[in-house]
């Protein structure tokens, strides 16, 4: 192992340990919230199953370990979570874990598309802004990002439906694919992509605004730095300077920011998926709110946190690849 590889491995191992510790805290918080609900899980399950038979409730209570002292219950709860057992949803007639896993790919697709779009567009806009600093392209871009930053996401989505779906009729406004005419293969992928455009753009706007400002700032800093001046003096070409020196240094804060925003992004998915009837976990959460299904809500919250933590590990790997090894802490 080279010293750099060792350093990176140590950095990632520490991040992994932190992630596991965070997850444990979230599970305990989850347990506490579950106990804040009036009535216990046995009442809830009996209620959902449509019986109030005291014998049945008592048996359930025993089966779920609800007659045990709280610390034991917490242990049992954590054990169940570790096995991926989030309970059973009577309303959907399947286990909560499978219910969520079924919806997960749609949400991940939406998140990936919106992050990808926000990052790509912000690199272009931020670079333009920095190159034309304080001239009209910069001012125009700043104005647009200011609006994107202040626009309520769900309202933007609804207005996009009115404009592109209803009046112009360019794009589908709800769902993930055409249910009336199911397609296969490449045609299906294209159909999903068409359905993805409006939700992904809506979801990306806010982050596009933040990232563009960030890229502009770090680009300006990089272009004013000694190492760029030195590279120019050495006779390095402008394109190579832009890609190798400036972009690389501008990417690091961007990657950090994307990692920090993942939780916000996933929270925003509840709104985007509700507006566009996108069949992901955000939409599932909206339905669970109406049914007051606290167990399902808490399970989505835990799994949402898992997604953020795992995605952050991926971001850390990217960060490790971009950053000089000495700076990994």
């Amino acid at each position: 192992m080279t010293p750099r590889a060792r350093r990176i491995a140590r950095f990632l191992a520490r991040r992994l340990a932190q992630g596991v510790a965070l997850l444990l805290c979230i599970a305990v918080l989850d347990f506490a919230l579950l106990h804040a609900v009036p009535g216990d899980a046995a009442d809830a399950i009996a209620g959902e199953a449509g019986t109030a038979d005291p014998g049945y409730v008592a048996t359930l209570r025993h089966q779920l370990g609800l007659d045990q002292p709280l610390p034991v219950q917490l242990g049992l709860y954590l054990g169940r979570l570790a096995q991926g057992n989030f309970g059973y949803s009577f309303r959907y007639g399947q286990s909560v874990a499978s219910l969520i896993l079924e919806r997960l790919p749609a949400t991940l697709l939406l998140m990936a598309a919106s992050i990808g779009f926000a990052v790509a567009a912000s690199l272009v806009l931020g670079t333009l802004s920095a190159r034309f600093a304080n001239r009209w392209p910069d001012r125009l871009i700043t104005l647009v990002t200011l609006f994107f930053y202040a626009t309520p996401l769900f309202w933007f989505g609804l207005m996009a439906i009115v404009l592109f779906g209803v009046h112009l009729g360019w794009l589908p406004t709800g769902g993930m694919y055409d249910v009336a005419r199911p397609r296969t293969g490449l045609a299906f992928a294209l159909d999903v992509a068409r359905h993805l455009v409006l939700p992904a753009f809506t979801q990306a706007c806010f982050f596009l605004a933040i990232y563009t400002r960030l890229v502009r700032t770090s680009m300006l800093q990089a272009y004013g730095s000694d190492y760029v001046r030195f590279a120019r003096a050495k006779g390095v070409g402008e394109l190579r300077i832009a890609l190798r020196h400036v972009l690389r240094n501008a990417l690091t804060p961007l990657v950090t920011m994307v990692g920090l925003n993942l939780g916000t992004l996933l929270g925003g998915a509840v709104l985007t998926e509700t507006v566009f009837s996108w069949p992901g976990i955000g939409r599932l959460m909206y339905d669970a709110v109406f049914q007051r299904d606290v167990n399902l809500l808490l399970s989505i919250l835990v799994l949402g946190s898992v997604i953020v933590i795992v995605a952050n590990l991926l971001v850390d790997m990217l960060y490790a690849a971009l950053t000089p090894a000495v700076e990994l802490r």
Partner: protein
Amino acid sequence: MIRLPLVIGGLIVLALVAMAASAGWIFPDDPMTMVAEPLLWPGQDPAFPLGTDSLGRDIAAGIFHGARASLAIGFISSSAALALGTLVGAVAGYRGGRVDDGLMRISELFQAIPQFMLIIVLLVIFRPSVATIILAISIVGWPAIARLVRAEFIVLREREFVQSCRVIGMSGPAIMLTQILPNALPVLIVSGTIQVATAILMEAALSFLGLGDPNLLTWGGMIGMGRDQLREAWFVVAVPGLALLITALGLNLLGDGLNDLLDPRGRRA
């Protein structure tokens, strides 16, 4: 020198406060009652310049009364988040050690949990009302402010004027309150202004999802109600959304403007 963002932002916020204050005077009737035929387009009837919604309620009255709800919830929840965040951030930054470690762990926790999802769960468990909404928004809002204040205190505690106070025997709380805090105020004012915008947008999103206070008319709630007639009568959704956009824009401009005004060193790029 003209400070355009500050002026525009300040004027927007002033106009909002005026709207909120005069709501009961210009529109004395309950904005939730039916006053005209439903779905009148803006301008169709001069008595209802912004039109009516599907239940025949005056949208203009809703906008004025909604300004009241938005500003109150945004301002109170931000003040709470600011107070708690400042207290924890100040102690963590000045003292360091265990308090500091604890704070950093908590704020990492809040970064890993999708905050909006946490608010939704809290409101479903504790039932949405003005009090629970304010509480939930401030619970997720304070860690970010605490981090900011902490960073500021860590820098300021090493400065000479603070060290000389320590030398003459001034107590820790007195130094934090009378020496460091006034120097950290610009950061607090700016982030507090932005936090009000964030809180207003968050409350609107909650009301849109049906998790608002059922007894309160809010802009987000109006958008949620109008969604069913989006195709035929999009103005019912457009008008309160524009009100939200202008409000958030005004507060952000005000925050940016204050940042320029209060930052004599010109640290920003």
